[in-house]
């Protein structure tokens, strides 16, 4: 089988899983316990890494832009730049990439290990639908938790920017906040808050797909985990690009 055929077969399987996810949503309430566990694992347990990631990006953005703006007397624009950059682009993107790694690896390795140890077959043998039990709670948890996590990444980034603005660029804190808040428009918030739902869906479904298609022992599990992280990260970037392009042309 050549690589192109293999790619289309993978894509077909992924599309079938996505359809089965929507079909299985009606049984989601039966797996509340699994959903709660995933909400905690994807949400609360990812919080520190997302806040830290956002903070670092905010500080870098403030340092890079602040010193350039300073050269032509516009360093007061730093607050607005950091706010716009974080809310529209970098907040969702940082959260997306960090969660592609964290959640993508978690989902693919957990489900892949279950597949290899016949636990997925055992679910089917007892009359359970593996998509309802394994995929729906994970994808729903990703979709639900992604927006709050993105908000924390945004907040971390603004805080990082504020620290740099105050300590290194000597911009008044109140002025930083005012310019940051007033620099944002409704469409910026709309863009920044819509992306996470798409990111959550794609990261969840892609990583579950690679988990469920794991074959070939521990090497296969490693391959499935790498594919889940790499492909979901690339899809996050692709979706971000499409979103940005559409928003600039439509809004």
């Amino acid at each position, binding site marked *: 089988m050549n690589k192109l055929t293999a790619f289309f077969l993978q894509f077909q399987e992924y599309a079938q899983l996505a359809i089965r996810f929507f079909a299985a949503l009606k049984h989601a309430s039966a797996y509340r316990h699994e959903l709660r566990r995933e909400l905690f694992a994807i949400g609360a347990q990812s919080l520190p890494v997302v806040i830290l990631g956002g903070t670092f990006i905010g500080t870098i953005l403030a340092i890079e832009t602040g010193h350039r703006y300073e050269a032509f007397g516009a360093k007061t624009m730093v607050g607005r730049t950091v706010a716009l950059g974080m809310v529209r682009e970098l907040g969702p993107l940082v959260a997306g990439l960090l969660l592609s790694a964290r959640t993508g690896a978690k989902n693919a390795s957990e489900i892949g290990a279950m597949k290899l*140890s016949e636990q997925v077959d055992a679910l089917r043998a007892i009359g359970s639908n593996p998509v309802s039990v394994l995929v729906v709670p994970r994808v729903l948890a990703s979709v639900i938790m992604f927006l709050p996590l993105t908000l924390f990444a945004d907040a971390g980034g603004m805080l990082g920017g504020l620290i740099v603005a105050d300590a290194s660029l000597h911009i008044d804190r109140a002025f930083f906040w005012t310019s940051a808040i007033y620099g944002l428009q409704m469409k910026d918030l709309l863009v920044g808050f819509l992306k996470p739902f798409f990111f959550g869906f794609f990261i969840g479904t892609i990583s579950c797909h690679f988990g469920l298609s794991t074959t070939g022992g521990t090497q296969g599990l490693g391959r499935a985990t790498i594919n889940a992280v790499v492909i979901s990260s690339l899809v996050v970037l692709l979706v971000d690009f499409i979103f940005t392009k559409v928003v600039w042309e439509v809004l």
Partner: protein
Amino acid sequence: MITLTDVSLAIDGAPILRNVTLTVKEGETMVILGPSGAGKSSILKIILGIWKPDTGVVRIEDTDIVPLREEEMLPYRRMMGMVFQGNALFDSMTVRENIEYFLREQGKLRHGEIGRRVAEVLDSVNMQGTEDMYPEELSGGMKKRIAIARAISASPRMLLYDEPTTGLDPVNARAIDELINRFKGKGTTSIVVTHILHDAFAVGDSYAVMSDGAIVAAGSADDILASEDETVKKILEEFRDEASLPRTGASTVPYSII
């Protein structure tokens, strides 16, 4: 009754099963023997409806299950209990939760009855006291007993065992054989897939020998041992002495050291 007629299966072009035909009568324990890779486990997955054969008919209680959709397979799967080769216990759940989850999904018992049934089946496999342990805390023999407890918990009419004694020491293997014989006595129709002759002859009523995806001999233990078929002789040769000495006697080994 379980009947397979001319069942063939290939995966990625490689033949796994070739025109397999066999019948397991009501209340009978059939042992499917053969070397690793002969296609034995594939038969169990086809009977469970997890895999679909390319050709052939698989009848459970007079119904051909091959054309059935996933949801139509449910009533048939609920007639069966399966003991997987690697046990397939859910490792994020305790022993109690593993069995409770199975019973909840089966939907045959009310909430209050489930706890009582869990205690009963753990008692029947001599695994009381392990309710709150996770699979990773159990030894190989204990895991196998829990897997059997889970499989029998919903009182299935058919039990499928995939290599139930593989990887176990002789003492544990004998204990598992005894469990299989105990449930056999309750009228359950069973299929035991194994490549260990010693255990095969300890539990079987009828036998089928497989090689390269095909059944090369079938019949009673005497028929198999007396077979003049070269492939069967080759498969049995290595174990013939051991096979003529079936294990007897009850296990006296406490579960805690198994």
